[in-house]
């Protein structure tokens, strides 16, 4: 019997028990739909993370004060006072792989303009920080190196801060109060959106690090050094030299832990991707269990169907159907069932992820690979779980099958 015939026969057999076929398909529909939705959410999140990492800058190497522990990081603010601007200058001097570097000194302060006030992070740095992070100015200008040397009370602000404090007013040249001190706003930064951790990067104020160190925090060390290597390969290659240089400068004995840690942009990207992949795989795994259960449902229904149609099988064999014919008939029926479920499931998954990105405003990214995988898996489920019932049908003895009541 040719394929089209077998397929038509399968459709008719399934149409004969519409409710039963629909319920059987439901398992596959839910499974495939869930896999598609989950994967598209996961891919969307991953895409966002990649965008976020792109936004960090290019070939960036971070050096953070604090100690690194396996499985996570511990930063002892205040406790670790060893990382300084001198360290940064030593790195720039002695490690040619590093092109430029900027320190950052963080603190949180209440900021006030007119009758508006806001609590935000104030970061002390140098003008080339914005080069390293590929962050441009929307209006006004960045404070100068001289202003850094002079510890001047000048700053640039992110768009969130600008919107909150100034509403519709133009902030350039205005004076805001950070803590107890007045600062002149020199520029407003381009909007950068959320970072990898979901923090609003535009909710920030940048001032000369000298000003923040001396006038706001009253410290002599820095929390981070943001540096940029000459290339991506160089950023990874620089980690070793930076580590040995800093260990030497901080007089850390062999065997003792570092009091800083070095991360490259690709480390962060890898970590973020890994986290996302684990989440996607986990959720995808849960969804696949539903696919498995759906497959068992198909097997169950096919077994019932074979028993119900024993006589039909006997008649078909008597008029000349071979074992292969019978087996193909039931296998095609099972695969039709599972692939129809798969197709409807893909539709549900697409609609589902569209709804999720609409109503929960989560980013979703439909992946062609996931759809292809869904088609492949639903066919595989049909073949795998349809094989045994089909085999059972083909192995029937025609004499007994004809006598079956």
């Amino acid at each position, binding site marked *: *019997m*040719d394929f089209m*015939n077998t397929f038509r026969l399968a459709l008719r057999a399934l149409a*004969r028990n519409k409710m039963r076929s629909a319920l059987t398909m439901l398992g596959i529909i839910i499974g495939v739909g869930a896999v598609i939705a989950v994967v598209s959410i996961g891919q969307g999140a991953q895409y966002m993370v990649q965008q976020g990492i792109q936004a960090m800058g290019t070939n960036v190497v971070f050096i953070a004060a604090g100690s690194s522990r396996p499985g996570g990081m511990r930063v002892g603010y205040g406790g670790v006072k060893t990382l300084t601007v001198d360290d940064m200058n030593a790195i720039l001097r002695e490690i040619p792989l590093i092109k430029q570097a900027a320190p950052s000194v963080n603190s949180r302060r209440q900021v006030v303009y007119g009758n508006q006030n806001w609590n935000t992070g104030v970061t002390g740095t140098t003008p080339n920080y914005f080069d390293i992070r590929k962050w441009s100015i929307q209006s006004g200008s960045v404070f100068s190196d001289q202003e850094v040397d002079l510890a001047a009370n000048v700053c640039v602000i992110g768009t969130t801060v600008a919107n909150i404090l100034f509403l519709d007013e133009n902030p350039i040249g205005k004076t805001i109060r950070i803590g107890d001190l007045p600062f002149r706003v020199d520029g407003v930064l381009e909007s950068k959106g959320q970072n990898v951790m979901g923090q609003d990067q535009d909710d920030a104020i940048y001032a000369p690090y000298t000003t923040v160190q001396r006038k706001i925090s009253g410290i002599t060390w820095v929390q981070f050094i943001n540096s940029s290597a000459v290339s991506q390969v160089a950023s990874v290659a620089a980690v070793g030299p930076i580590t040995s240089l800093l260990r030497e400068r901080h007089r850390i004995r062999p065997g003792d832990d570092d009091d800083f840690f070095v991360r490259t942009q690709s480390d962060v990207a890898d970590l973020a991707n890994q986290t996302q992949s684990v989440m996607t795989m986990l959720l995808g795994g849960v969804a696949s269990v539903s696919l498995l259960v759906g497959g068992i449902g198909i097997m169950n229904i096919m077994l019932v169907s074979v028993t119900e149609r024993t*006589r*039909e099988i*006997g*008649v*078909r*064999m*008597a*008029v*000349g*159907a*071979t*074992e*292969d*014919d019978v087996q193909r008939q039931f296998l095609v029926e099972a695969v039709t069932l599972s692939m129809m479920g798969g197709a409807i499931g893909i539709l549900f998954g697409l609609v589902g992820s569209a709804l999720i990105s609409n109503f929960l405003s989560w980013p979703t990214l439909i992946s062609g690979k996931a759809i292809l995988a869904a088609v492949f898996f639903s066919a595989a489920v049909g073949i795998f779980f349809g094989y045994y019932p089909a085999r059972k049908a083909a192995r029937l003895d*025609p*004499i007994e099958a*004809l006598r079956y009541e």
Partner: protein
Amino acid sequence: MAEQATAVTESKPAAASGQPLIRLENVHKVYDLGEIQVQALRGVSMEVREGEFVAVMGPSGSGKSTVMNILGCLDRPTRGHYYLDGLDVSGMSKTELARIRNRKLGFVFQQFNLLSRTSALENVELPTVYAGISPEERTKRAMESLTRVGLADRAGHHPSQLSGGQQQRVAIARALVNRPAILLADEPTGNLDSRTSVEIMQILQNLNDEQGLTIVMVTHEHDISQFTKRAMEFRDGKLRRDTMVQNRLIAHQVLQSLPTHEEQAAQDDAEETARQENIKTRERQEKLTGTEATK
């Protein structure tokens, strides 16, 4: 017994004409049921030639069903040989047997065994589907076949919309559609009333007489076997009697003597009224005698 067997062998070649289509050579069939072994056939040898119409008879357990299953290539002999149209099929694989059933054999069953919720035409088409015939040719042949049993106008009907006799005719059309060498019928009239049974026998006789179709039919009804040309009787797994049918009945003559379904119904009604009358009269009498008794 031995004398009878000799007598049979003597009478056979004279009666039969054409090539031997079926030849069983000392066929044994043993069913292994685990602890016990059942000897269903204990050395059956027979020949059926082209154009014969054979009735296979015998009580249940005689081995006649086993013979039919072997003749129908649904089962294989444990020992001995089965030559079908000159081909030794006793050693063939299941797939080869399926092909033989498809091309050379036609089956008619007691239970009709039509596929429900499938039109008469599609039921008749079924064997052609497995023969790999093109869809147009399939429909054409199925219609021809249905016409031959007089059901062309019922092609679109489902089995549930047909009477028992019509269903059996569809089954015969199905058996004929691949132009088989032999038609095997297993109690084809077992589920039908007398008149319909004769109608079915008329179709089989026509096929046999006019087209020379070889037919082997299992039946336990003696009067049905009278429509055939030759009767074989099985008992205890052996062929005990093999005789030519004397005074063969001709179905269309018998049909003329039988009341039609309408006449039958009228007669049944008349009988029923008479019976009711009888009961009433008896009740009346009983009432009378009853009242007398109480007096």
